[in-house]
């Protein structure tokens, strides 16, 4: 479980996060949603310790991040998997080497054990015949899946994904969403996903945190997001006509 208390972050004069508190539970996929530029990536990077917030605290299973020693932080980081918005694959390594990289850092496995494990996770993300390609030779969707494979290869306890399915076709996007949810269930991981994709929200949003103007504007789940009267949420969620119709039908069905 990750407990976030009142975190604030600015860059110079720009106040990006203005005090956000929430919790992300174990074994659940939690979604952070909001418009482009609302601070989702900054929020996630604060959770990861890439940015240090000026105010507030973040605790991982009861341990406050900023109070950990360097060794403890390193230990914690071996339990974190992260999928960056742009995949962030190491472009000097093959896909296989990218996936094996966390194992090389954190385990004492020999080469064949690492290869077996990497093979296994690459299968898990439906990538079987791309092992020796360089990231630049893979399509955007493949890169995302490699990034997910790299994030889960060392059995993380916490998984963070920054827009794992942006830029993908709807079908692949759903495959990736479901994959993340399955992995979360299967290994009982605490998963936090940044998204502005309403399909993801409907598919996997067991918990949803809505950010607007640096504040948490709303919090709920995929069940409650369709019923809420909160105007900022409905403006965001039903910005497309398709979703306006979906909502109408949904409300009619449930009356």
């Amino acid at each position, binding site marked *: 479980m990750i407990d976030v208390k009142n975190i604030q972050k600015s860059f110079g004069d720009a106040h990006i996060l203005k005090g956000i508190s929430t919790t992300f539970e174990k074994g659940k996929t939690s979604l952070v949603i909001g418009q482009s530029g609302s601070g989702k990536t900054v929020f996630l*990077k604060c959770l*990861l310790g*890439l940015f240090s917030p000026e105010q507030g605290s973040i605790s991982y299973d009861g341990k406050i991040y900023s109070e950990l020693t*360097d060794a403890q*932080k*390193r230990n914690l*980081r*071996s339990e*974190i998997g*992260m999928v*960056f*918005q*742009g995949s*962030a*694959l*190491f*472009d*000097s390594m093959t896909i296989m080497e990218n996936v094996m*990289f*966390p194992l*090389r*850092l*954190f385990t004492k496995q020999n080469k064949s054990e690492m290869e077996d494990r990497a093979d296994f996770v690459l299968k898990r993300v439906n990538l079987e015949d791309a092992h020796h390609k360089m990231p630049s030779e893979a399509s955007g969707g493949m890169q995302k899946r490699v990034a997910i494979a790299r994030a889960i290869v060392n059995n993380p306890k916490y998984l963070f994904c920054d827009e794992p399915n942006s830029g993908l076709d709807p079908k692949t996007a759903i495959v990736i969403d479901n994959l993340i949810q399955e992995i979360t269930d299967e290994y009982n991981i605490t998963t936090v996903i940044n998204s502005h994709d309403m399909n993801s929200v409907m598919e996997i949003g067991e918990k949803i945190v809505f950010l607007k103007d640096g504040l948490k504007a709303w919090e709920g789940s995929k069940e409650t997001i369709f019923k809420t009267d909160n105007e900022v949420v409905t403006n965001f969620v039903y910005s497309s006509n398709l979703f306006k119709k979906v909502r109408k039908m949904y409300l009619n069905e449930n009356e």
Partner: protein
Amino acid sequence: MYFFTLAVTNFTMQYLHNIGAYFLMIAEMFRKPTKWSVMRTLILKDVDDLIIGSLGIVAFISFFVGGVVTIQTALNISNPLIPKYLIGFATRQSIVLEFAPTFISIIMAGKVGSFITSSIGTMRVTEQIDALEVMGVNALNYLVFPKFIALMLYPFVISIAMFLGILGGLIAVKFGGFGTVEDYILGIQTDFTPFHITYAFIKTFVFAFILATIPSFYGFYMKGGALEVGKASTTSFVWTSVVIILLNYILTQLLLS
């Protein structure tokens, strides 16, 4: 006047800030070392990229510039009272003392330096550096330290440059008819001062350190996107050359006078 003072103060502060950040980076580079099995691969890759990959251009330039230095010297020594072996002597001195260590380092600031800045800068803008940090890797150690180690082989490159420069001179003498090969060989053996070699290699080591760290600094701390990577490479080349030229002056003053 007020605005002028303000501008100068800002300008100075900016440079002081950069210099401070640069030294902090160097300290950080030696902290929290990356696992050896990973580091070994990185060092080998950088030796390949930075050292082996530069041999071709260095060999080409040294050979021909060596030839040109010799021709120029020969053409300027027209007085029959000056012995012909001085051509070899002058060529050796210019190549060993300045051309190989300094001139080649400026070329390397362009070749190796911009490669380092753009590759690290690209890793910054594509969040690969963040990815390393999330994995608990000390990114400065991971990225800069192997380049520093690889460039410890830089004196080897410079030795080749010296050798080929002098060889280029020999070929020019032989085929240009500027003197005899015997005179040239006598010249390159005349008044040999071992300390000059020491001086040249001290410079080489210092420049190797500069070549590894200043371009890394500009790559690692860059902000922005692909366009800024290009700008950072240019800035990095300018500052690497400026620092090499200044240190060349200071070291020459300290060691030779």
